[in-house]
């Protein structure tokens, strides 16, 4: 086989392979190579149970970002949120952990508010609500704490 033709064929093969690899890593694996299109804010919750790095952040059911990291601050969970630059959040933003369906995965729902100043990168969302703990609700009912 001619040298140039061989290199052409190998080039096409490597290109297709790389496209598949990039698709798997970035589209499916959610690897963030290009930063800058998002900004980070923080939120503290009593419990971030079920929330994972990579979980979706939604406003009105539309995905606007992803959870970047969860750490423990004293006895509360500090969640780092990476939100798209196009989305404006204000100081009275309300963040709550919701479940998709009864046994679906957890995600973070935001209602952006409208009053107050816009949130700057690194700011903290103050109004938060932890996820609904089904087991706790059932045990409250069973042990007769519900009047």
């Amino acid at each position, binding site marked *: 086989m001619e*040298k140039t033709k*061989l*290199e052409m*064929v*190998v080039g*096409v*093969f*490597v290109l*297709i*392979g*790389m496209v*598949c*690899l990039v*698709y*798997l*890593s970035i*589209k*499916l*694996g*959610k*690897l963030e190579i290009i930063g800058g299109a998002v900004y980070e804010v923080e939120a503290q919750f009593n419990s971030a149970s079920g929330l994972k790095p*990579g979980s*979706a952040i939604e406003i009105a059911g539309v995905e606007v970002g992803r959870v970047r990291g969860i750490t423990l601050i004293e006895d509360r969970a500090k969640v780092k949120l990476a939100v798209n630059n196009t989305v404006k959040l204000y100081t009275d933003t309300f963040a709550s952990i919701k479940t998709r369906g009864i046994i679906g*995965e957890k995600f973070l729902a935001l209602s952006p508010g409208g009053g107050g100043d816009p949130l700057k990168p690194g700011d903290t969302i103050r109004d938060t609500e932890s996820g609904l703990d089904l087991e706790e609700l059932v045990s409250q009912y069973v042990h007769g704490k519900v009047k």
Partner: protein
Amino acid sequence: MTNVIERLGAWAVTRVGEMGRMLLFLLSAFAWLARPPLRFHQIMKQIHFIGYRSTFVVVLTAGFTGMVLALQGYYSLRKFGSEGLLGSAVALSMIRELGPVLAALMVTARAGSAMTAEIGIMRITEQIDALDTMAINPMQYLIAPKLVAALIGVPLLVAIFDVVGIYGGSLVGVDLLGVSEGAYWNSVQSAVEWKDVYGGILKSVSFGLIISWVCCYKGFYTRQSAEGLGSATTEAVVLSSVLILVGDYILTSLLL
């Protein structure tokens, strides 16, 4: 009685000796790789042979694996009414396990055996000795390009395998069995994490190393006979397949 123990000892010594020779073989191949000249055209030829020419069989295997996974998964998941999870079942088993293992086994069968046979024939017909007399190091000219080509080619083949498999799964799941398209792709997206993709890539690189290492070694030390060549090829395919399956278990348990 002493005879049995003696034979056991002889067997163990031979095995350990062989393992040591294999390791030295690999180290010397990498050492010769670091030394100029870099045989760029040889590497191209080997990527063409190991990678490009295996694409068809890998795509075929991937398509049918994805389709049968979707079919099986659908009937199990339907019992719990959660057909929506079909996408994540197919994508996770493809990316984490089946992609690397099946693609590596296909490459072993197609390219690994040919590698052993090629090097073995060169050994029997004394072409390797001829290379030596011409002051061309056979490690650098024959073995190193194959190692590099497998390290590049196998991960790319595995990536193609994963993508084709997931599309094959959607072909059966969405178009044939009627899972909603949005549910399928959404569950693929939400289930797969970078950790899974990374594990798959790590596995495919290790399997590429295993294939080229074992197959080149077996070919390089072929005994001087037609039978020797036959048994070298068989041993190469069996040993690399076994090492791939055992290595897959070990890597999975380490990565989890």
